[in-house]
């Protein structure tokens, strides 16, 4: 069974996560060997996933942690006595 571009795309997310079964992965790999478009689409999707996962993209506001722990210092004591 040969799969077409549309089917490769449908499974692209699972493929990136290594969650497709062996048979399907082999089919997708075979398709990618000769399909420039799907290869480029896969590479770009994977690249996007890697980039958004970088912790520099989403950073906590400055002082967030200090403020949180200061609040805990205050309120945990109150919580105890209530």
């Amino acid at each position, binding site marked *: 069974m040969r799969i077409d571009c549309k089917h490769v795309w449908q499974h692209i997310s699972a493929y990136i996560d290594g*969650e497709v079964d062996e048979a399907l992965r082999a089919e997708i790999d075979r398709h990618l060997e000769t399909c420039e478009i799907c290869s480029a689409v896969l590479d*770009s*999707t994977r690249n*996007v996933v890697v*980039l*958004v996962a970088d912790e520099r993209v*989403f950073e*906590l506001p400055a002082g967030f942690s200090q403020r*949180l722990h200061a609040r805990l210092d205050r309120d945990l004591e109150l919580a105890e006595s209530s």
Partner: protein
Amino acid sequence: MTASNPEFEADCIRRILAGERHLFHDLIRPCERSIYFLLMSLLRNETEAEDAAQDTAIKVYLNLKNFRGDSQFRTWVLSIARNEGLGRLRKAGTRREDSLDAETDEQTGDYTPAILTSWREVPSEALEREELGALLRKAIEGLPEIYRNVVLLRDIEEMDVRETAVALGISEGAVKVRLHRARALLQRDLAPRLEGFAPDRSKERKGFMGWFKA
């Protein structure tokens, strides 16, 4: 922070419940990022999200004795965070019916990718350029909420499918569908615009050192 350590957590919880209150700081610290960003995703406002994150931490503390260990600690914490966020939205009257989530999952929409014939990898080093971070943030923030939440927990906070499903109160199937759609929308939005951040191959051939580590 490092990945969760269930034994450390279980030990921490036991000792906190026995009276070593100060250990709660160490217990909650690895969860801070996830709590804040999930709430930011729901509330869309930094001040509100921070406020809600603090309230969440307090609620976690007060309910610590109820943690059963059925899921990972962070998952349980994020369920509390999610409920905190949803509660605030309901109070503000801005929460849409939850049934909309299910409807959106069933809708067929356009999740086709941006078609390319080649792709040059954009390295993480490119994030030193502030505009790339801004571009990525804007793309994520522009996603529909149900897709944004999933990409946040799966791709940004690197939680697995099961834990993401429990934290968001949805099925594992829904996690997978929504993640696929989130990634599809991001690729379509970003791929045409990321090309400018990829290293220039002609410079590589001339031995330009800009993108190479020393």
